[in-house]
């Protein structure tokens, strides 16, 4: 491993803070509160941001082999610490809704995501850009079921019906084609029985050593 694994205590409380921030971000957007409430919260958040800024920077950990980096334990799908800190699926990243994923079979991943009020685009609807972002995440994780690490080269999303807020959305991604270093994955997003969108992405496979070096470089900064 490059970098140190964080302690269990730190991991648990980081995730709790991320969840608390996720909920407060939604409330900032959704509520119409008196100025003094926003001000008091702002001063506290500023103080904690300042407090955390003096701490050492987190080092991204990368396994020495791809088999160790991408693995399944029971229903839980792992991709290094990517799934902890991803801005879409990361439980430790407040930007993430977060999407949860589990492996259905060797070529299929199922994702679940619910967009809060903070993700509103059109009136009462999830922002179309975040729907696209969710597809990039799910299909990117889907292509890794092949055992490879790939980067998105192309993404196409077709919006079939409005995407509701505060509703659990079920996504499914499947590996569609493998052609040398090119992997194509396709997916769908449903709200109940209704198709909200479908997507397709093409990925270019990176050698694990190249991937590991790219990620490790971030840790060295």
């Amino acid at each position, binding site marked *: 491993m490059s970098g140190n694994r964080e302690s269990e205590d*730190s991991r648990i*409380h*980081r995730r*709790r*803070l991320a969840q*608390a*921030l996720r909920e*407060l*971000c939604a*409330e*900032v*957007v*959704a509520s*119409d*509160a*008196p*100025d*003094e*409430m*926003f*001000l008091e*919260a*702002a001063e*506290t958040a*500023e103080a*904690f941001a300042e407090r*955390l*800024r003096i*701490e050492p*920077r*987190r080092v*991204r950990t990368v396994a020495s082999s791809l088999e160790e980096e991408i693995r399944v334990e029971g229903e839980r799908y792992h991709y290094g610490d*990517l799934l902890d*800190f991803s*801005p879409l699926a990361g439980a*430790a*990243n*407040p*930007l993430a809704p977060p999407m949860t994923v589990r492996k259905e079979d060797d070529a299929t991943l199922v994702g679940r995501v619910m967009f809060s009020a*903070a*993700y509103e*685009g059109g*009136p*009462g609807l999830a*922002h*179309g*850009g975040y729907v*696209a*972002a969710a597809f*990039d*995440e799910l299909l*990117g994780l889907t292509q890794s079921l092949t055992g490879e690490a790939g*980067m*998105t080269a192309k*993404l*196409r999303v077709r*919006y079939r019906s*409005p995407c509701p807020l505060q509703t659990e959305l079920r996504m499914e991604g499947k590996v569609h084609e493998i052609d040398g270093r090119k992997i194509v994955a396709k997916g769908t997003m449903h709200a109940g029985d209704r198709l909200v969108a479908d997507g397709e992405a093409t990925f270019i496979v990176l050698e694990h050593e190249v991937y590991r070096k*790219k990620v490790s470089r*971030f840790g060295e900064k």
Partner: protein
Amino acid sequence: MSKDETGRRSGPYKRRLAAALRSLNVEVVNAEAPGEVFQEAAEAIEGFTKGLTEQPRRTRRVGHRESNRDPSGIEFDYGMMDLSPLSGSANPLAPPMKIKNEENNRVVGVVTFPASYGLGSGAVHNGYLAAAMDEILGAVLAWMGRPPMTGILDVQFRSPCPAEKEVRIEGWVKRAGKQIVFTEASVRVDGRIVADGDAVFFIVGEDTYERLSEERNEKIRFG
């Protein structure tokens, strides 16, 4: 009527809180702190959330044109758009991207994504680049006074887009019909294209937009 319903910007304290949370969102991802520091912050934040959930819900300006643009016709961060999850300075999820209208219905967004918008490789998550392109192309239509819904979004990623660097996204109309508009966009860093794409938008019409806004507000008022 709530203060947000008038179409004015969100108040300065909401914006300040959004900015503070934006900084804290970055630190949660980047800092390697003892568990008790995260715990103390979490407890304080949870307390504020509880207080805000007891407050009235924000309703949304019903009209489309007046809710998007400031009277000068230059800045986009206005009315409901200041709550956008990509460009809204009152939304802590937004980096935020600054959007300006240029000549000939070209819209330009300038944004610097912190490292927390990436996957740890120093590059911005491609999904967020796609989202930013959707925002810019939607803004082109909004500026023309034509409320849009994205139909198809196609993005080609040419090279990794670095975090912590200024990104310039430009969007324009390629071809416009009565109900369907074809648009294109480019994403550049230091003048170099890192992504480009196109999108097809369906024009929903101001009446439909107003109906959706009213339905949304009713749902919030009555649960």
